[in-house]
């Protein structure tokens, strides 16, 4: 544990570096993105954790932390690191327990004036249709064989069975199904944990929100048009992951890596949550294939939730989902490890990019970005707190050059859950938010209090930092009008 924050070298107004001389074993510097105020306010563990990441074998250029960074386990939340695919490692601690925790944004052709009279009905029915909270079960009843199909096929499986539209897949990272997922690498326990959880939100900071686009909150008209965003539009954004399934995959492989890391591969680490194995080792490849199952489970989870949203809107608004053009804008993961290719020292190099609480932010022209968005860059969806609003951004070329095509993922917590519960009361907060025009439904008042807006960093400042740093471009801000919280 550090006693004092390290000395930071200013790279520019929005990037700061800790030299590799700071800590024994650092192979590269650590770089933290954010304004001075944001970086100054980061808790000391962020600096400890990001510099620990810099000690891992095969790390390239620098260990990174995004402006929404806060302390996590192993990697900080907001942590990004790329490891040489030939000589480097893969680490579950660089992905997180909630594999493919991510965001999906859904647009409609409805305006806020059309929706507001039906808002209460919408949020009540969404609260029932999309179960949230501890131990919630979804409506898709599966046997273990079907679940094992889902974790290899992802959102494809859902669309094939009528839970969505073909176009949803093209607008999902990895087309909703990452190749190379191998269900045989996943434990029976993981399957048992996830079996009933497809179509559920989870709890904590997971949510589903009806939002609207205030006319002055469109900042980039060209990109907004490409993404189908217009003034006064109603959209739905939600945040969830691979539920107990992904958590168990991470837990299982953390143990596998702890058992072999030092004895078999001679890798010493500074924090057990950084347990890792060479990417090309049998253990590393097994985790990679199992983690991809977590990615696919999560894509499927969000696909089924989108289906439920379409059902609820159709029922309440009395029109079909097609008539209301309830179309996915994009679905993006923020807890992943991906095999990607970048130019390093003039050479095309394959790296394993770990993003833990960081969003892929691929710039214009990249083949991974859907053709319809390729001229403006990949949509990046950033969830803010339930009180303050969220953002739609665009990926940039600078992110490709500096941050392994990555940017922030949210606003980032500044206040502990206990502290938030002491400061805010869930019931009072719900009433207060309703007075301010935001309806909230939650399974837990205590859980609601923990997610109060003031428990988070200022989302506008975080987004400004990513925009000024050039690692994503501001497109639009979306304001909440109704929120379902786990």
């Amino acid at each position, binding site marked *: 544990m550090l006693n004092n924050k390290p000395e930071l070298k200013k790279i520019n107004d929005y990037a700061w570096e800790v030299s590799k001389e700071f800590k024994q074993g650092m192979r590269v510097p650590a770089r933290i993105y954010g304004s001075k105020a944001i970086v100054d306010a980061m*808790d000391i563990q962020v600096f400890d954790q990001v510099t620990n990441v810099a000690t891992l074998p095969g790390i390239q250029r620098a260990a990174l932390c995004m402006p929404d960074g*806060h*302390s*996590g*386990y*192993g990697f900080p*939340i907001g942590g990004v690191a790329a490891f040489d695919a030939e000589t480097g490692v893969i680490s579950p601690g660089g992905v997180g*327990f*909630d594999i493919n925790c991510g965001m999906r944004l859904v647009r409609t052709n409805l305006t806020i004036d059309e929706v507001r009279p039906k808002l209460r009905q919408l949020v009540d029915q969404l609260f029932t249709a999309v179960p949230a*909270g*501890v*131990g919630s*079960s979804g409506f898709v009843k599966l046997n273990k064989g079907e679940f094992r199909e889902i974790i290899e096929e992802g959102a494809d499986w859902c669309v094939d069975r009528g839970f969505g539209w073909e176009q949803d897949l093209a607008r999902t990272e990895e087309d909703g199904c990452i190749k190379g997922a191998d269900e045989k690498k996943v434990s029976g*326990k993981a399957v*048992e*944990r*996830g*079996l*009933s*959880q497809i179509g559920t939100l*989870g*709890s*904590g*900071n997971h949510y589903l929100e009806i939002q609207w686009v205030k006319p002055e909150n469109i900042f980039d008209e060209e990109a907004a048009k490409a993404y189908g965003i217009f003034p006064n539009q109603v959209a739905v954004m939600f945040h969830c992951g691979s*539920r*107990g399934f992904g*958590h*168990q995959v*991470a*837990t299982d492989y*953390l143990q596998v890596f*702890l058992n072999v890391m030092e004895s078999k591969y001679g890798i010493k680490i500074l*924090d*057990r*949550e950084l*347990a890792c194995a060479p990417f090309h080792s049998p253990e590393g490849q097994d985790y990679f294939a199992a983690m991809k199952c977590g990615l696919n489970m999560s894509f499927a989870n969000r696909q089924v939730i989108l289906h439920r949203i379409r059902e609820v809107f159709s029922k309440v608004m009395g029109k079909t989902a097609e008539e209301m053009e309830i179309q996915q804008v994009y679905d993006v993961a923020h807890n992943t490890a991906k095999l990607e290719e970048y130019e390093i020292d003039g050479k095309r190099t394959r790296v394993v990019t770990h993003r833990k609480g960081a969003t892929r932010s691929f710039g214009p022209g990249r083949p991974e970005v859907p053709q319809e968005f390729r001229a403006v860059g990949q949509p990046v969806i950033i969830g803010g707190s339930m009180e303050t609003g969220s953002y739609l951004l665009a990926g940039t070329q600078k992110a490709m050059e500096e941050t392994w095509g990555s940017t922030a993922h949210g606003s980032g*917590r*500044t*206040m*502990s*859950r*206990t*502290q938030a519960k002491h400061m805010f009361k869930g019931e009072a907060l719900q009433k207060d938010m309703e007075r301010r025009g935001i309806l909230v439904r939650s*399974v*837990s008042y*205590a*859980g609601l209090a*923990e997610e109060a807006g003031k428990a988070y960093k200022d989302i506008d400042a975080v987004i400004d930092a990513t925009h000024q740093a050039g690692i994503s471009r501001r497109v639009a801000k979306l304001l909440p009008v109704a929120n379902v919280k*786990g």
Partner: protein
Amino acid sequence: MPYKFLEGITVADVAFEASGATENEMFESAAEAVTSTMVKDHKSVKANIPKKLALKAPSLEQLLFDFLQELVFLKDAKLMLYGKYGVKVSQEPNGGKFKLAAELKGEKLNPKKHELLVDVKAVTWHEYRVWKEGNRWKARVVLDV
């Protein structure tokens, strides 16, 4: 059962310290802390359905880790919450493995009956510690929520 939630260990998650006069008591305190992270009133979980649990691990700290992780697993896989734990910890002879035999008692999770708080995703190794202080066993645990 003595446990306290800790401030200053984690910003986004839940940390606690559990203690007991014996290893058994400390394990039970830690289990109660896990349940109390998810349910506001631990006593609202009735001890209706029994379940026997047997675990083995190379160290006491690993054994506690596995035990708490098992409670998290049972919550998702079987939708079960437990209010009584009946833990007996022992060690095989000659410095052998640590063993746990627990007689859990609980009931199905029911949002209408149990005031639910936040879901526990995993037990983590972050700042994780098991130690003896004077005559008391202690453990520090951070849960990912």
